[in-house]
């Protein structure tokens, strides 16, 4: 056997962006200077869901989990002094992907770059937004149409662009087993390709090239050998599906191309320094197999469960990649798993299980149908519940969390500068820039561009050309999205919790259940809990798990899903007659939103105990408690029974004596 040529390293990225286009641009240039080889843009939630910074739902969210991009000027600032013809840019953008790509193309044109030279990826996977991540904006059908428009447009206009990154990443974060991850990702890819294939305007013979531009975005958990097998199984399945279903003859167009962000679900708040080891092992899972090696890798920061990572934390993650690729001998060999009967057997078993689940989803009408009837969501909530139960029962070991909990104090955590905080003035300044931008643009051009876009949507023409014109004309993110919202309405995905099965009992759960029943006797009806997710943050897994367990211990739970305003939460608390409110926020906007809810309750004359869960740094937790929040829960509080026991106790204390 000839000795292998050294493999080319994958693209090194760090998911980043915050505060403003200017601040993010500085960060990007610094990261590139340190050896990062591609960019991964994190947008803030208003940008992801199509609202301008001055919209009521954007309050508290501007610049928090990513960079706010409201118009062409922001996009130009974001990439100032970064030549776009030589950059590989990945954008985590979905519902509004067509718009952000239009802004990117317009920004490139203003740099004098021919769009044909652009390379990069728009995430653009709406299915997983309904299932897990929550930053959808429109109903499934028009959303699928936007995706298919982008694919049909880019295949010739920007041939090096990956118009969609089918994400199984978020499915694992939502609790998916590896087999579910494979099956749902494949079902999703099939839904997209079927939609594109059915387009009358698709140039004849271009389907194989379209297939060749489909890429995937995977997760990698701590069971890193299983993860290596998962990647191999997906590569084989994709090869089979693209050949059988879409008749792609050219093997290079059937290649399974994927990027990875390794697991955040398994990162712990307890003894967070251990996360570095987890991240290294997870990175191995997706790089060990040469035949199924990732094309791009993003590693989270070790302290992600504590708050927004600082530049130093992100640099540490980049160094992991550089050591793996440049110091070790990883890239020198051919595929080291080829010929291993153990690996082959595992891959076969995973493929078979995934095929079975895939066939089941296809039989019910495919991925879109399985979103609308909540099948996939229900399966994910079930798997996630099972995982948390296993941790609680110590069947699944998490070092530092449910075993080896005793530890030396970490010198790395604590102190005022331990995490990055976004300056509260970011929102005000972004709104000021937006207002200034609106003043200087040509109103007639904007109106004409919006009318042209609306006509294209109505007449079933590709929305990309009019969107690019709108970008040049000075249309804002909110205005672009409003065109679709007006035509298709707001959409709310099924929460999936109401059909989930009741957890197996154990002593702890029984103890809380009898506590709840006794309280119900005292109150005259079962205790009623409102689980609220204020703001634009769509990460609903935590809220869903609390809602399901509260039901299982005997509470009546009102859970209305994501994206509620503080006013709506207060109104719901009043009309529903709840005894306690639990708020869940992971975007870092807890400061503003929780205080707004407390203020609303006061104005409505309601004195109800309020608890908050989320990624909340210690100092913020203290501020919230001072403002009247009774309990603050963070990722280190993994024992759901204990949380619900405490909530029951709070209701008992708040209730007037019988």
């Amino acid at each position, binding site marked *: 056997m000839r000795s292998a040529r050294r493999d080319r390293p994958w693209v090194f990225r760090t998911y980043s962006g915050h505060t403003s286009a200017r601040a993010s641009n500085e960060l990007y240039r610094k990261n590139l200077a340190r050896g990062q080889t591609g960019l991964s843009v994190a947008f803030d939630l208003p940008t992801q869901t199509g609202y301008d910074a001055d919209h009521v739902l954007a309050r508290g969210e501007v610049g928090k989990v990513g960079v706010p991009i409201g118009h062409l000027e922001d996009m130009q600032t974001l990439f100032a002094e970064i030549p776009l013809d030589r950059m590989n840019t990945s954008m985590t953008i979905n519902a509004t992907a067509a718009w952000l790509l239009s802004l990117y193309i317009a920004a490139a044109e203003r740099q004098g770059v021919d769009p044909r030279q652009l390379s990069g990826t728009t995430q653009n996977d709406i299915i997983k937004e309904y299932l897990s991540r929550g930053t959808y904006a429109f*109903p499934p059908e028009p959303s699928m149409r936007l995706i298919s428009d982008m694919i049909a447009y880019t295949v010739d206009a920007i041939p090096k662009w990956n118009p969609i990154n089918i994400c199984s990443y978020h499915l694992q974060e939502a609790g998916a087993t590896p087999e579910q991850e494979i099956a749902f990702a494949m079902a999703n890819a099939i839904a997209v390709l079927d939609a594109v294939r059915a387009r009358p305007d698709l140039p004849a013979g271009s389907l194989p090239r379209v297939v060749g531009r489909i890429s995937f975005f995977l997760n990698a958990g701590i069971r890193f050998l299983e993860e290596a097998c998962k990647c191999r199984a997906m590569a084989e399945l994709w090869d089979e599906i693209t050949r059988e279903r879409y008749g792609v003859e050219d093997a290079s167009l059937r290649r399974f191309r994927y990027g990875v962000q390794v697991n955040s679900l398994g990162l712990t708040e307890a003894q967070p320094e251990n996360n570095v080891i987890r991240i290294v092992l997870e990175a191995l899972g997706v790089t060990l197999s040469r035949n199924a090696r990732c094309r791009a890798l993003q590693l989270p920061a070790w302290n992600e469960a504590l708050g927004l990572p600082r530049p130093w934390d992100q640099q540490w993650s980049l160094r992991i990649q550089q050591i793996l690729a440049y110091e070790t001998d990883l890239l020198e060999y051919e595929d080291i798993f080829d010929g291993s009967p153990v690996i082959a057997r595992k891959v076969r078993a995973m493929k078979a299980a995934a095929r079975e689940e895939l066939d089941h989803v296809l039989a019910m009408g495919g991925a879109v149908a399985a979103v*609308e*009837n*909540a099948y996939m969501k229900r399966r994910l909530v079930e798997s996630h519940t099972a995982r948390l139960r296993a941790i609680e029962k110590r069947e699944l070991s998490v070092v530092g969390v449910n075993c080896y909990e005793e530890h030396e104090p970490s010198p790395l955590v604590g102190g005022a500068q331990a995490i990055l905080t976004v300056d509260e003035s970011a929102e005000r300044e972004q709104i000021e820039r937006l207002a200034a931008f609106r003043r200087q643009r040509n109103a007639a051009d904007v109106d004409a561009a919006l009318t042209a876009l609306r006509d294209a949507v109505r007449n079933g023409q590709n929305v990309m050309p009019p969107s690019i014109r709108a970008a040049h004309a000075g249309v804002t993110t909110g205005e672009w999205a409003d065109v679709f919202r007006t035509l298709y*309405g*707001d959409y*709310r995905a*099924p*929460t999936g*919790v*109401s*059909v989930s099965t*009741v957890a197996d*009992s154990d002593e702890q759960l029984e103890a809380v*259940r009898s506590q*709840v*029943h006794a309280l*119900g*006797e*005292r*109150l*005259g*009806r*079962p205790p009623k809990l409102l689980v609220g997710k204020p703001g634009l943050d769509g990460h609903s897994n935590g809220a869903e798990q609390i*809602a*399901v367990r*509260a*039901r*299982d*211990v*005997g*509470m*009546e*739970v*009102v*859970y*209305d*899903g994501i994206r*509620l*305003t503080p*006013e*709506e939460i207060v*109104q*719901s608390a009043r*009309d*529903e*007659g709840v005894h306690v409110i639990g708020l869940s926020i992971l975007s870092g906007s807890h400061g503003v939103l929780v205080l707004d809810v407390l203020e609303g309750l006061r104005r409505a004359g309601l004195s109800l105990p309020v608890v908050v869960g989320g990624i909340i740094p210690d100092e913020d937790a203290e501020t919230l408690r001072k403002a009247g929040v009774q309990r603050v829960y963070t990722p280190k509080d993994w024992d759901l029974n204990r949380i619900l026991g405490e909530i029951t106790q709070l209701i008992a204390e708040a209730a007037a004596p*019988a």
Partner: protein
Amino acid sequence: MNRIDDGRPGRREAALVLLDALESGTRARAAAGTPTPTCVGITGAPGSGKSTLLDALVRALRRSGETVGIVAVDPSSRRSGGALLGDRARVRSGAHDPGVFLRSMAARDHLGGLADATWASVAVLAAVFDRVFVETVGVGQSETEIADLADTLLFVAQPGAGDVLQFMKAGVLEHPDVFAVNKADLGPAAERTASELATGLALSSRGRSTWTPPVLLVSAQDGRGIDALLDVLSAHREHLHVSGEATERRARGREALVSNALERRYGSYGVERLGGRPAVCARVREAPEVSGFALVLALGREIEAALGRAASAADDAARP
């Protein structure tokens, strides 16, 4: 609303007195010729789009200035007694609008039926709002009970939900007064389901009513058929009054309210003390001027007295 949803001794009686007063007020309004709100029940399988359809109806009603009260019932878990309620948020039109009120409720420990508090809530909402809707999942016993509670029962079907035989087997053709096939935007599949429902209805026997339940195609998404559905609901209300079925229905509803409430509270053993369900229904019919809630209170006291006598007799027998 919290006050009528309280099962503690003493509080429950207080709630019944309050409800009796409310219902007397509603009756007085009716007697004075003021139109009283009809209660529309909405059932259908999960996923048929009941909430989104309700949202569309509410929006249309609000445009014409009518106020709306909604009770949304979800099943309780048999094992834990808990319940997951929602999705309120799908009825978005209520946000920031004092003319819309929604309360979600659990069915509690009652075999798939409605909680006492559901009947009570409808009485409260009927005293305040122009229209009252009760939304249930419509499985098991709630199907029958919602038919007793509501003046008009609307069944929401989704395209491809099944063939005639399945509809008949599921018993969904017996009670509803109006059928709406949702998601008409899906085209032929919706039309097929509508025609299957119509065929099934023609084959099934539906009691003595002269009302033929219409089958409508609607779409909560694009608004198709919503006005027609509201017209049909009004037509059914008109029919109830003209045909005299309204009186008959309300009487049947009262019987169900009283006997169900007594059975939930005292069990069938307790109801036997009054001679069983038929005897209770007869007592309700004999007192048309008394509200159901007052009857629950009065008959409940009779049962308690009888049970007390039985208990002391048993004590006597046990004494040496």
